[in-house]
């Protein structure tokens, strides 16, 4: 008997060496081929090689699969697969009431229980009452299944993640073929390893099928509301990286990515470093400052200089970003935000660099600030950033975060020929040349590439005289230049899309989000709507300048709820710039919003209205 479910959230957890991330990735692919929409989130341990069996060494992977369009990896897992006691200890609190626990009993030894901080075995002492516990000796059963294969025990044990995966494939009616094909391809040179993993997967599946301890089997049908087309999986970091490559290719400008390793942005560097055949130059600099400076140098010499970092790195780059403001050069700085201040919680997300991005430099130094709202959207945002930087000769800061960086979802693969053109004008000389003469429309100064004869000129961080670019300490000239640099950033409004409203165009309550919280906000809003409430929603990708219609939009709502993973930074900007009645909903826990949290907050506000 299969029970139909509209969606389910599953979390795999185990020791770092248990192959949890791989199992999760394969479950994701199988779900894609089953036609589901999905969203995933990995949770790696902060320690590189934490001692085996400890809580610090637990690695986890969460996936939400659904028969409809979804936007987050889910608030709470309903199924928890744990490969050892530490994994149970660390993840149990997140498990939904009445949830299913599949536990590998082999690892629940007195020693491992002690390492995880259990006084007694939770699988036996009744402490898991209220959950449905399925205890399986996954390790021994894997060994048994592989007993005829010429492998040592250690190699056999490494297949246990596929045995566990097999159980889950049966439980959630996943196809085995995509994973089997992948295994055979991956281990084409080591057929005995391929065979062992395939066998473990099938054995887990068959065990679940014939064993009576699995009394329930679920089916999540294919999603019917997905746009037709070809899809692949993408996470926020890779999506940004591909957006940069694509935009530079379209603009006819080479991409020079300069970065210093920092969590959670390093993955962008890794991705681009492996893309050298696309002509991408990557430069691992000696420090954060050198990274941004090299990017500025590359932009000056005709490339698109880009660097990726996280909050502490952005702080270090600020003086140089000010130079790019003054010298009016294209530059992109990606800040994959993490919990701060200082070193903070490097692997945890936060949206607390918004004000730093906007105002963290000395002097009046406006830059364009934009933020992707989903892994797929990150591609479009990176693409747009290149266009803005090159056309307006201006630095652009992209605010991603540690959640968005690793969150993965299906991505409708764009077609190369439908990508928008990026027209970059390069000045090559015609008559008298002035380095700070401006384009009437964009206010950009001419983009001149060193090496061009007859246009030799000098730029720098000292204040420039309007038009000639000569050093100037003239008070009125300075004020004029300050205003021109700000006006140039404002004019980026001409090429950004207006903000759209999801729901009624006017009303009592608007939820206004920015960045990676969009998925949770959509989820929460949909939940209250299903209960008959009316609430509108809008999301900001462009934070400086704001979309041109934002002011007018805000004026049509009595109250504006702004959920953000900081103490109210967007709220401050909205209150400072517009006449809006703002309610801040702040969460600063290193974790993104849950749908349920947005739902509860909305209910609270909507009920107040009813009462009032």
């Amino acid at each position, binding site marked *: 008997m299969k029970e139909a479910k509209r969606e389910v959230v599953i979390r795999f957890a185990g020791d770092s060496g248990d192959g949890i991330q791989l199992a999760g990735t394969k479950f994701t*692919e199988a779900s*894609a*081929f089953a*036609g589901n929409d999905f969203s995933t989130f990995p949770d790696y341990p902060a320690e590189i090689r934490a001692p085996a069996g400890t809580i610090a060494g637990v690695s986890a992977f969460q996936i939400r699969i659904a028969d409809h369009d979804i936007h987050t990896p889910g608030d709470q897992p309903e199924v928890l697969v744990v490969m050892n006691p530490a994994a149970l200890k660390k993840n149990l609190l997140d498990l939904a009431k009445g949830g299913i626990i599949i536990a590998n009993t082999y690892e629940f030894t007195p020693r491992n229980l002690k390492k995880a901080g259990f006084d007694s075995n939770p699988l036996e002492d009744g402490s898991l009452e209220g959950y449905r516990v399925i205890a399986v000796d996954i390790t021994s059963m894997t060994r048994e299944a592989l007993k005829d294969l010429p492998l040592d025990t250690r190699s056999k044990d490494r297949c246990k993640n596929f045995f566990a995966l097999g159980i889950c494939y049966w439980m959630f009616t996943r196809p085995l073929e*995509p994973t089997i094909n*992948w295994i055979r391809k991956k281990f084409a040179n080591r057929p005995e390893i391929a065979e062992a993993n395939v066998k473990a997967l099938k054995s887990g599946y068959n065990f679940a099928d014939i064993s009576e301890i699995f009394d329930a089997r679920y089916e999540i*049908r*294919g999603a*019917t*509301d997905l746009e*037709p*087309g*070809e*899809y*692949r*999986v993408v996470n926020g970091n890779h999506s940004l990286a*591909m957006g940069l490559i*694509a935009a530079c290719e379209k603009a006819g400008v080479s991409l*020079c990515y*300069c970065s210093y390793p920092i969590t959670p942005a390093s993955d962008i560097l890794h991705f681009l470093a492996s893309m*050298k*055949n*696309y*002509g*991408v*130059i990557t*430069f691992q600099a*000696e420090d954060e*400052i*050198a990274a941004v*400076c*090299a*990017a*500025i*140098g*590359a*932009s*000056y*010499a*005709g*490339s698109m200089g880009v660097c990726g970092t996280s909050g502490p790195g952005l702080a270090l780059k600020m*003086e*140089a970003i000010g*130079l790019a403001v003054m*010298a009016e050069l294209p530059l992109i700085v990606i800040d994959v935000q993490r919990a701060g201040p200082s070193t903070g919680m490097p692997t945890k997300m936060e949206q607390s660099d918004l004000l730093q991005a906007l105002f963290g430099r000395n002097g009046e130094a406006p830059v364009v600030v934009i933020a992707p709202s989903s892994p797929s959207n990150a591609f479009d945002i990176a693409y747009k950033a290149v266009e803005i930087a090159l056309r307006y000769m201006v630095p652009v800061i992209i605010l991603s975060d540690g959640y968005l960086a690793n969150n993965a979802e299906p991505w409708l*693969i*764009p*077609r*190369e020929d439908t*990508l928008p053109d990026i027209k970059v004008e390069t000045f090559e000389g015609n008559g008298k040349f002035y380095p700070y003469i401006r384009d009437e429309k964009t206010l950009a100064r001419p983009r001149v*590439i*060193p090496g061009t*004869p007859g246009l*030799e*000129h*000098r*730029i*720098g*961080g*000292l204040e420039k005289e309007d038009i000639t670019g000569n050093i100037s300490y003239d008070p009125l000239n300075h004020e004029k230049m300050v205003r021109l640099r700000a006006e140039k950033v404002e004019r980026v409004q001409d090429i950004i899309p207006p903000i759209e409203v999801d729901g009624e165009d006017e009303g009592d309550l608007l939820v206004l989000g920015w960045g990676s919280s969009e998925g949770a906000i959509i989820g929460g809003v949909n939940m209250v709507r299903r209960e008959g409430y009316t609430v509108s929603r809008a999301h900001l990708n462009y934070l400086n300048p704001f979309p041109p219609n934002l002011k007018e939009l805000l004026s049509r709502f009595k109250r504006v709820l702004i959920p953000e993973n900081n103490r109210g930074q967007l709220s401050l900007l909205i209150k400072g710039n517009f006449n809006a009645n703002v309610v801040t909903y702040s969460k600063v826990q290193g974790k993104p919003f849950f749908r349920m949290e947005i739902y509860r907050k909305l209910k609270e506000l909507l009920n107040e209205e009813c009462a009032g």
Partner: protein
Amino acid sequence: MKSAQVKWKEYASDQEVRWCPGCGDYAILKAVQQAFADLGLSKEKVVIVSGIGCSSRFPYYMATYGFHTIHGRAPAIATGVKLANPELSVWVITGDGDGLSIGGNHLLHACRRNVDLKVILFNNRIYGLTKGQYSPTSVVGTKSKSSPFGSIDSPINPILFALSAGASFVARSVDIFQKHLKSMLVEAGRHKGLAFIEVYQNCIIFNDGTFSDVTSKEGKRKRVLWLEDDYPLTFDEDDSKALTFDSDLMDLKVTDDKDKALVWNSDGRYDIFAYKLAQIDNPTAFGIFRKICRPTYEELVREQIFALQKRKGGKPTLSELFNSGERWRVLGDGVIKKLVR
């Protein structure tokens, strides 16, 4: 790179030079212009990148491309320029404070990577632009505004720094040794890889005469040791003294026996002596301490790109990028899904 011959005065921009009258920077500016003329550099191919400090105003006075950046970061910015366009002749102008204090890290890494930059370090042993504080090359006991009782920091040795950091060309000259300075700049310009030139430069306002032990008439005669390939290391009146290798002390030693003089070569075979020569001040060595050949950073960067493109059959299309990894197709009403390929 050679085009119509540019006369040295044509490298000067239309900007009025605003260093203090009598500043050593004027002489260096002229030597650079003359060296550029000798090298036959066309103006549009040259980018001069500087940091912050008196010397860093340099780019404004040159009719080439120029970028006056921020304090200490010129080597990093110049690295980016070279990454984007290896064809450019990129010169970094820095000082003892800019290059060895706030920007020490960038200079170190530019040297080790062997980026094809020409770094001219104006060493005046003082902070001039901020009006006279001791610098990282100030000798111990330097009395300045920020060290009224004498500086207590041990100074950094720029030549030793560049040698240790792996610069492939290391030389030293003096602002007023015009001919020698120009020849060092020409050698640096011809060198492929990172060329580091320390120039002793007199700050007439805040540290006048700091190098008088070699720039005074007597000093120049008695104390200057010229490093020239295939010539013996002799100095003083009529080359009466020589440097020789003392195998017991495993060190260089001054001797009156000219026949025992070491014959210098900068090609790396005597690299161990280059370190020693950098550390002694009587005699003080001027000339090329090291000139070796190794691949430049930007060459290696491009080699990797071309090698990969060759191995993978050229530069792929964007479609290939997007379509890498597992894909599936959503059809019609979305219920049916298929593996792609």
